[in-house]
């Protein structure tokens, strides 16, 4: 079965030395686990001070790697180089990534309009990670992290109905609130969705088309995310949607 992992990162996480991945180790890991395509973002983009610089380094480095690793264009609307980075890399990217919670801005900020307009005109999806790590014990550096406001996410999706929004790594209740709103342009990933019966319940209620596979590697073990789906009583048809078809429709991996 083909798998697209939409929730991958490259780099080292300062707050946990076990969390690190280079392009080389990522390539090895996705091959070992039978992943067809992985959509990756550099972790350094979270704290980077220039959009062009950080994306230049990442897109240049990724040139030497197989097409299995597809780069996401990570943007911070508060930092310089935004327009140039989009102009230069939007066509090469699998999608746009925004770390608004970690970079402390609101998704309704007018600074983001240019990003939404670009996403709309290029039909690029926007991926917004809601969580990355165990926040209950690890937020010393990220003390400012506020609760996810699902209402804000819904408003953003409503304001830009032609843009597909993938909210990656929501907690279970956040995913349920997002999906219960019934928006056509909202999708969620599986990486933080854990509980005995949770995915079955979500799929029963909201359909299989809304769920994309994501591992949150290297924060999480790739194996943990894969086993999560294998252990459920899903039909092959459902698995194909979660693992591949849904992401393939949104991200156009044939690009």
């Amino acid at each position, binding site marked *: 079965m083909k798998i697209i992992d939409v929730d991958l990162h490259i780099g080292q996480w300062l707050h*946990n*030395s*076990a*969390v690190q991945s280079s392009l080389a180790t990522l390539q090895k890991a996705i091959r070992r686990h039978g992943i067809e395509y992985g959509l990756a973002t550099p972790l350094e983009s979270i704290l980077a001070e220039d959009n062009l610089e950080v994306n230049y380094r990442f897109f240049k480095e990724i040139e030497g790697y197989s097409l299995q690793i597809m780069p996401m264009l990570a943007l911070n609307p508060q930092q310089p180089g935004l327009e140039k980075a989009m102009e230069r890399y939007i066509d090469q990217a699998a999608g746009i990534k925004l770390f608004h919670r970690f970079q402390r801005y609101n998704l309704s900020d007018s600074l983001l309009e240019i990003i939404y307009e670009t996403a709309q005109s290029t039909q690029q999806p926007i991926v917004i990670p809601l969580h990355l*790590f*165990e926040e*209950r*014990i*690890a*937020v*010393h550096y990220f*003390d400012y992290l506020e609760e996810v406001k699902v209402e804000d996410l819904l408003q953003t999706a409503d304001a830009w109905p032609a843009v597909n929004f993938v909210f990656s790594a929501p907690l*279970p*209740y956040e995913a*349920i609130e997002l999906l219960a709103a019934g928006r056509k342009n909202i999708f969620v990933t599986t990486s*933080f969705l*854990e*509980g*005995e*019966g*949770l995915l*079955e*319940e979500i799929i*029963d209620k909201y359909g299989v088309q809304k769920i994309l596979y994501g591992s*949150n590697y*290297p*924060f*999480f*073990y*790739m*194996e*943990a*995310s*894969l*086993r*999560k789906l*294998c*252990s459920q009583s899903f039909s092959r048809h459902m698995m194909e949607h979660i693992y591949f078809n849904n992401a393939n429709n949104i991200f156009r991996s044939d690009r």
Partner: protein
Amino acid sequence: MIIDVHVHTYNRSHDALLGSRLFQEIVTRARKAGIDRIVISSLGRTAYLPYPSSQEVREANDDVLKLMQEFPEEVYGLCYLNPRNPDWKEEMQRCYDRGMIGIKLWIAVKASSPILFPVIEAAMQRNLFIQQHSFLKSRGNYRDESEPFDVARLGIEYPQARIIMAHAGGNGREGLKAIAPMPNIYVDTSGGVPECGVIENAVAILGSQRVLFGSDAPGRSYAVQQAKITAASIPAAVKRRIMGSNFQEFIRHEDN
């Protein structure tokens, strides 16, 4: 043999997230995930109750007793207690008489509180071990929620008591270091996201014999929590110990 030392019953508050589940499903799902035995407690029939009344405690424990009767080969029961209730001792005795093997303590009383001491003494007299919830939250714990330092103090006070501190990942390196000098305190791997490095840290700090596999199902997934162990960068023999043989030895120790 794979033994999950930290499982709870489904309760009504799970319905919204996990769907309305058959009571027995917590056992059949474990079986499907390749787990041979589960150590289960109920923190309440309607929800996880931090300060349950005597009646609520009895109901919770009745649910576990029912599972023990229905699945005698697969289920070990833990007796949930609120040490603030005047009749905790009668409830402990009732659970002990019906075959429960340990005491489950959540967040009614801190592990370092003298309120808990008579409970520990009574448990030791009956050869019951203690599974104590603990977390080291960066934004502060609940009022009576234990930190690992509380568990360490309990271990010092009662060096003969056998204690499992729950949630290796929730206590961080600092928390694991706090209990490291007390050989009578074990840790379970339950709960928390499958973050890389948690199990490796636990083994490095506590050694391979004091780490026990736990999932915290149904709030967590059996499969994901097992993968934390199987994917960790530790030797295969250590993984086997964590997944089952450490707990078998822990129980044997109880029997002696």
